[in-house]
């Protein structure tokens, strides 16, 4: 067709459309003047016009959106700088990751290409590069090694070591992780964060997708500093919230679940935000689901800001309370009450794992040596994987443990023997353990000491004629003895409040800093010990009496119904149980708890 012919068709087509459907045929008859080809041309165009629904009625990108979005920016064989693209590894909000070959050094690298939008702002890019360079200088076994931060053909990229393995996200998708595996991975992440924080680098986007597990079990944390690049340029709290809402439908959607409350509120961030996110990750490893999961991003945000997560114990009774306590401390909404450093968290995780390893070793190595009755009394517990320990180390451990246990058993038998001799009690006699406070406010002074009178001594006097075996732990701080105490499977532990709960429920933190770790390990042992052991906690403080116990029970549901409190403020300052009314009340309480009316 010629342009002239086209114009003719066009004019007749438009004129025909301007007429009512019934009049068109007659109109075309006249307009085409017997030119049958022209008439057919116009008629077929009108028919095409009348058809309903056509690809052309929606913009191209509606159909193309999927194609565009799933389209890798670089193609196989393409070169960017001295890297040759081998395949696509993955895609995230922070750009696409390719497996590439470094043609200079002839090694495989992971090449992350930043999206154009992130590289439009010089200032942001400069800050990112600064931070990525700082991270690359860390040289930590659990931080992904950055080889190069560069730019070629207008694209900014980061070349890093290539990890063969899976992301923690992929691992969690299979199902919750075992306790030992969780602790092992959590420790490695914490160690990486601790090193980064020490160098002044905050990750800001700790989540399972940013954690790789190599085939040999080594964990690598990826993308330090990248989150900052993705952050809104604007810094005011309101702006950040707005930016958050906007991005929640977009590329960083998955990250909302790991946001700390301060992050969700758009406040300024420090290292403690990473501790929160790590808490979420640990929770998810243990349960397979997030602590603040919501149907929508907004639900999740509300949950992060306002709700307490479901207790870990309700997912599996095998999760030790000590770990629950660690996770809760990491997931404390006020960052001032959270773990203050990754180092603190790491110390707690390590201690817990060591203790659990010891307990597992005890169970494995020593159980056959114990009497049947003792073995049967032993509570069942989670099997603990001790991946980092080699076989030979295990044997060494076992030998040491056998020796220690033999010694402890001797001591226990000797002590029990002494009690049996004294009280004539039999094997079935309830054991009551008295624990005094190792803390500054413990009831302990030179005068009473002269009379042999700590609180535990006084209580021993009060309970002397009862059919119970009394164990005093007043000479050593809690943390030296709780393993022995709990192995005894006591029916009742009478304990001073400061030994027990302050730090665990977050008050008087400064005053009880010393006991902090001890309480944590103690709670860890509770889960390993006798599930029927009751606790009678005494306090002189009228103001908080009961409050913290309730709080503690709330946080550690396994303690429900097992913690009893007693206000002993009626007695004299440093000799509480010398007061006859207090003594009588304690005696009644112990009788009632042991069912000895």
């Amino acid at each position, binding site marked *: *067709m010629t*342009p002239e012919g*086209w*114009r003719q068709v*066009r004019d007749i*087509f*438009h004129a025909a*459309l301007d007429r009512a459907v019934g009049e068109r045929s007659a109109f075309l008859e006249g307009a085409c003047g017997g030119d049958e080809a022209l008439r057919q041309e116009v008629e*077929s*165009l*009108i*028919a*095409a*016009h009348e*058809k309903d*629904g*056509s*690809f*052309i*009625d*929606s*913009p*191209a*990108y*509606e*159909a*193309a*959106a*999927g*194609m*565009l*979005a*799933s*389209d890798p*920016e670089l*193609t*196989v064989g393409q070169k960017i700088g001295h890297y040759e693209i081998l*395949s*696509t590894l993955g895609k995230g909000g922070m750009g696409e990751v390719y497996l590439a070959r470094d043609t200079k050094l002839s090694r495989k690298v992971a090449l992350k290409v930043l*999206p*154009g*939008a992130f*590289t*439009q*702002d*010089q200032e942001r*890019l400069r800050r990112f590069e600064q931070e990525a360079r700082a991270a690359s200088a860390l040289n930590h076994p659990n931080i992904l090694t950055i080889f190069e931060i560069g*730019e070629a*053909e*207008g*694209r900014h990229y980061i070349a890093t070591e290539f990890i063969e393995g899976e992301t923690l996200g992929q691992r969690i998708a299979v199902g919750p992780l075992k306790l030992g595996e969780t602790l092992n991975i959590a420790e490695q992440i914490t160690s990486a964060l601790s090193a980064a924080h020490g160098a002044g680098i905050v990750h800001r986007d700790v989540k399972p997708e940013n954690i790789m597990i190599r085939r040999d079990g080594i964990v690598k944390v990826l993308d330090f500093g990248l989150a900052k690049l993705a952050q809104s340029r604007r810094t005011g709290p309101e702006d950040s919230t707005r930016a958050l809402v906007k991005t929640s*439908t*977009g*590329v960083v*959607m998955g990250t909302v679940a790991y946001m700390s409350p301060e992050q969700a509120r758009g406040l300024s961030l420090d290292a403690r935000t990473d501790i929160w996110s790590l808490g979420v990750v640990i929770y998810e490893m243990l349960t397979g689901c997030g602590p603040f999961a919501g149907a929508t991003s907004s639900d999740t945000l509300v949950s992060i800001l306002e709700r307490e997560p479901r207790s870990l114990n309700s997912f599996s009774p095998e999760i030790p309370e000590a770990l629950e306590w660690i996770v809760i401390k990491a997931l404390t909404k006020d960052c001032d009450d959270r773990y203050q450093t990754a180092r603190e968290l790491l110390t707690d995780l390590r201690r817990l794992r060591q203790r659990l390893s010891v307990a597992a070793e005890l169970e494995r190595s020593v159980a056959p040596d114990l009497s049947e009755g003792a073995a049967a009394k032993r509570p069942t517990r989670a099997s603990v994987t001790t991946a980092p320990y080699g076989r030979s180390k295990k044997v060494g451990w076992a030998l040491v443990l056998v020796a220690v246990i033999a010694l402890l058993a001797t001591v226990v038998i000797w002590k029990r023997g002494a009690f049996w001799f004294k009280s004539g009690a039999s094997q079935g006699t309830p054991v009551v353990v008295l624990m005094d406070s190792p803390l500054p406010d413990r009831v302990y002074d030179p005068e009473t000491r002269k009379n042999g009178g700590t609180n535990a001594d006084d209580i021993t006097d009060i309970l002397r004629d009862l059919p119970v075996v009394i164990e005093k732990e007043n000479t050593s701080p809690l943390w030296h003895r709780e393993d022995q105490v709990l192995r005894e499977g006591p029916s009742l532990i009478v304990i001073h409040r400061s030994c027990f709960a302050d730090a665990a429920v977050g008050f008087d933190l400064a005053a009880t800093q010393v006991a902090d770790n001890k309480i944590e390990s103690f709670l860890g042992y509770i889960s390993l010990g006798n599930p029927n052991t009751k606790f009678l906690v005494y306090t002189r403080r009228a103001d908080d009496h009961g409050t913290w116990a309730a709080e503690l029970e709330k946080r550690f549901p396994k303690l429900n119904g097992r913690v009893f409190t007693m206000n002993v403020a009626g007695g004299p300052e440093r000799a509480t149980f010398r007061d006859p009314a207090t003594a009588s009340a304690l005696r009644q309480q112990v009788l009632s708890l042991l069912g000895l009316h």
Partner: protein
Amino acid sequence: MQRPEGITQLLVDWSHGDQKALDKLMPLVYSELRRQAGNYLRRERPGHTLQPTALVNEAYLKLIDQKNAKWQNRAQFFGVAAQLMRRILVDHARQHQAAKRGGSDQQRFSITSAEKLVKQPEVDLLALHEALNELKALDQQQERIVELRFFGGLSIEETAEVLHIGHATVERDWKMARAWLRRKLE
């Protein structure tokens, strides 16, 4: 490194006929359009009517320095974006086809997500592109209108603004071009 002003300058240069500017512009606009397309897929549900200019408009807001006096004309950008969109999609379709022939596993571009979303019959972009070239020889204005409406997602009014012609003309030409393309491609 392209700053927003850089992009604006490139657009100005290209609109003045500098083809090198286009080469530099493509990856930047492409990456932005791609990002918007991703957002679009996450946001939209089947049957949901899209704001016609959302995609290019968002790209515009993102890429163009609003304060730059040299590039105040939104319509001008839409015109450029539509043209770029066409190039990008057609290039993409070519690669796709080449990859199919080559049988490379890595290059399998899926448009299944789009197929699920869109009830319209699938577009053969390469055939459309060729048909548009044919149309250009017959009626350049109609070809431009299709480019702006279909690839740029512009409304009748916006198209009229870009081409400096009346609404009625755009409407009539669009009807004709649309009918012609339908007959040719469906």
